[in-house]
């Protein structure tokens, strides 16, 4: 059975791009347009991997990532960050959330900065999901 990959992304063009890459590589794409819808889809669909943008409406990828990694039911789902926000900022933001009393969370399985080449995205997914 094809593995399910949830893509949380507000930009329609990038959603189309990621969907195409996923389908061409034999994965089942699931889409969410912001972090709030992303959390709903995670609970409903239990994806095998999540591709996560950061700056979106309603809930950012930074908050969603933190919530997932602190939730025992979802903390083991691999996450690939795909964003225009730098990795350095992402790591600092997670550290800042920890300072405010949350537990430390692990780094994501991969961090890709936009724009990403289709081959690089496919290869990253293959490395993680096999």
């Amino acid at each position, binding site marked *: 059975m094809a593995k399910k990959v949830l893509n949380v992304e507000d930009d329609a063009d990038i959603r189309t791009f990621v969907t195409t890459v996923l389908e061409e590589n034999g994965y089942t794409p699931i889409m969410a347009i*912001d972090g709030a819808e992303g959390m709903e889809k995670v609970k409903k669909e239990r994806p095998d991997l999540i591709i996560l943008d950061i*700056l979106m409406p309603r809930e950012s990828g930074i908050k969603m990532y933190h919530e997932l990694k602190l939730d025992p039911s979802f903390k083991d789902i691999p996450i690939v960050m795909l964003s225009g*926000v*730098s990795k350095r900022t992402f790591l*600092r*933001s997670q550290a*800042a*959330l920890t300072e405010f009393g949350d537990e430390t969370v692990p780094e994501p399985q991969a961090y890709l900065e936009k724009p990403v080449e289709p081959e690089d995205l496919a290869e990253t997914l293959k490395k993680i999901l096999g």
Partner: protein
Amino acid sequence: MKVSKILFVSEFEELWLDALQSLMALRKAGMNNVVFLHVISRDKVAMRRGAGYLKQEERKLKEIADIRFIDWAETLFEEGMEVVAHIAIGNIVPKILSVAEIEGVDLIITARRKRAKLEELYAGSETSDLLRRTVKPVLIYNYLSQSGKVGENPFERLLLGLDWSVSSEKILDYVLALKGAVKRVDIVHVVGEKDVAKISRMEVHKLERSNKKRLDEVCDILANERFDARPHLYIGKVEEQIQKAASEHRTTMLVLGAKRRSIWKEKWSGSAAHSLADKSDLPVLIVPAEVK
């Protein structure tokens, strides 16, 4: 009341990073969530005779907005704040209202918005339009002020214009929620010229005493919450006196109340708060009487 989530509306031509940074004073009042909104005017991408919908132009403008927001958001993320962004195409006021509702913000921040002269004559400014239609507090920056710069902490010295209506109670509640960000509060009540024109001297003194008593009561409420609050009574035209008081007390922001009015009522009877929001060089915070 609380001020934990703010909506920062920017067209990148009028509200800059310095305005955003100046709002960080609100962190001391519990603000930890920023919503960015950029609205691309429809006439930049559509409604052009013979050209159809300019999809490429839309993509380019959205990309520019996205890059700018990411740059702003990175600083806030690194401080542990939550940041979300909306980039939309359409009319600015309805988009502000809908995003404010979707995100459940506690404060809308926008620059003063003008329209073409003829349109403004009939429909008023976009700022007035927003103020008429929202039940959320709105902070209006005047990006055309002489210095062109936003002060480091606009919440440092507030001038509260109170008229003893329901709006005044709302203003007071809202300012109490800003505790931590505010250093000094000057509470001003303006007695209208007409109110004292036809009464005896004795009655003028009575009026003065009763207003001073009310001002002192408000000061006591603020002082109990450790605000440095001072009462001031002025006589004259509300708009003029508020501006005079602001200059005398080195105010950094005006805080005024407003009732929702129809466009016609607004046009003919006017509102000092809306007028100051349109004219003052200082940032103006308008707290609607209907705010929850």
